[in-house]
């Protein structure tokens, strides 16, 4: 499948970087066509500006900053997000990519007179999250899993009607052993290898 990998972590020596390497290796071995967006690597600006807010309903062609990102979204059949979960949800950098790129004319459109939006990313058939949580699964359940639901509900609603979501998460990483981390890397590799 045409696969867009979005990676978000400031530190090149982080466990998230190891997860990215494992993911790319597995996706390559499975023969997928891959594009990678490294948000920190390309110094993406996550702040939606006053200007962008004002021109939100303008055609995306008038917004060169996000043209490449929009093109990637329209191109892909699968989105793989690799990031750490902070405060229960996506880091600001990744949330900013969603805020600024999943816009009118790219992810959805609102027809005149309509009061519900029309999803535009029907090409996306699968969303996979590869993430780590400092807290345990129990704590995340108590918090209501905001990060997970943002992907599996809010974003998924813009994609194919039959879009499937996969949630690959290592919980309690603050206290995880090396063995547990390696095990998770193997799990990610296995899940993305087919």
């Amino acid at each position, binding site marked *: 499948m045409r696969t867009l990998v979005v990676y978000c972590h400031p530190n090149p020596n982080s466990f998230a970087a190891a997860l990215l390497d494992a993911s790319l290796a597995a996706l390559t071995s499975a023969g997928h066509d891959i594009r990678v967006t490294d948000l920190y690597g390309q110094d993406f600006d996550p702040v939606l500006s006053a200007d962008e807010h004002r021109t939100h309903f303008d055609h995306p062609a008038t917004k060169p900053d996000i043209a490449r990102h929009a093109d990637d979204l329209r191109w892909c059949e699968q989105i793989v997000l690799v990031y750490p979960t902070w405060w229960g949800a996506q880091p600001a950098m990744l949330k900013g990519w969603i805020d600024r790129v999943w816009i009118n004319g790219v992810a959805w459109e609102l027809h005149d007179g309509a009061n519900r939006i029309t999803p535009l990313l029907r090409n996306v058939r699968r969303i996979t999250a590869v993430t780590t949580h*400092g807290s345990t699964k129990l704590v995340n359940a108590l918090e209501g899993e905001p990060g997970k639901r943002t992907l599996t509900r809010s974003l998924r609603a813009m994609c194919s009607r039959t879009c499937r979501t996969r949630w690959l998460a290592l919980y309690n990483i603050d206290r995880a052993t090396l063995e547990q981390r390696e095990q998770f890397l193997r799990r990610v590799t296995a899940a993305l290898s087919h």
Partner: protein
Amino acid sequence: MPLTAATSAPNPPAKADALDCADRTGDIGPATDARDRAAHTGNISRAGLGVTPASHYRHRVMHALVIVTHPARESFTHACADAAISGLRRAGHSVEVLDLYAMGFSPAMTEGERNAYHSDEPIVHPHIERSAAAIRAAQMLVFVYPTWWSGLPAMLKGWLEKSMVPGVAFVFDAQGKVRPGLQQVRRIVGISSYGSPRSYVHLVNDNGRRVLLRALRLNTGWRTRRTWLPFYAIDSSTPEQRAEFIAAIEHRMAAL
């Protein structure tokens, strides 16, 4: 165009807080009339309450930190923030305001900040120093923002990540477990606009609310109270409804 600039002179209805409709697939039905809509969205209203003098309220006076997130000063979000601040002041609370866009806050956690996170000195920027001091002094945290993609705008999410660091919001104990650090916070308030109606917001899990009222709440004391003041379906709202909500915010914040 974004929304109303002031309570007294709401702008004509427009494509409202445009981004909010990003997750609006919930159907509120065509040609819904205003009455049905009000029942449907479940927005609070002032219900004819007049201005109440501060002496009327019997409560402990608190120091409130109001965190405002919206790129446009003339937005509905800022109008809500202004009303909340005036309500808090009327009830005798002291108020400190952080306007993240006006500060030029940079929300993306940098490599240096990430590396310092687990050190003894996790605060490396004057903005964070200011925010951390404000958080430590606050007995009430008030978040005013538009909900985008069912969550916090990146700006506000980044502020949480960078300001609520170890030593401010929580501490790691000897076993590496997180222990609450916001014991002084007695109340968390969220005021947010949504493009979607309430039914759809619930369907997608109201993720921003969960981050503030659950994830952040876990780091306060057990008795910390939570107040959520949502304005749903803003794209199809009328100027009167928005003005009424803003008036209701002022009243609710004065009566906390």
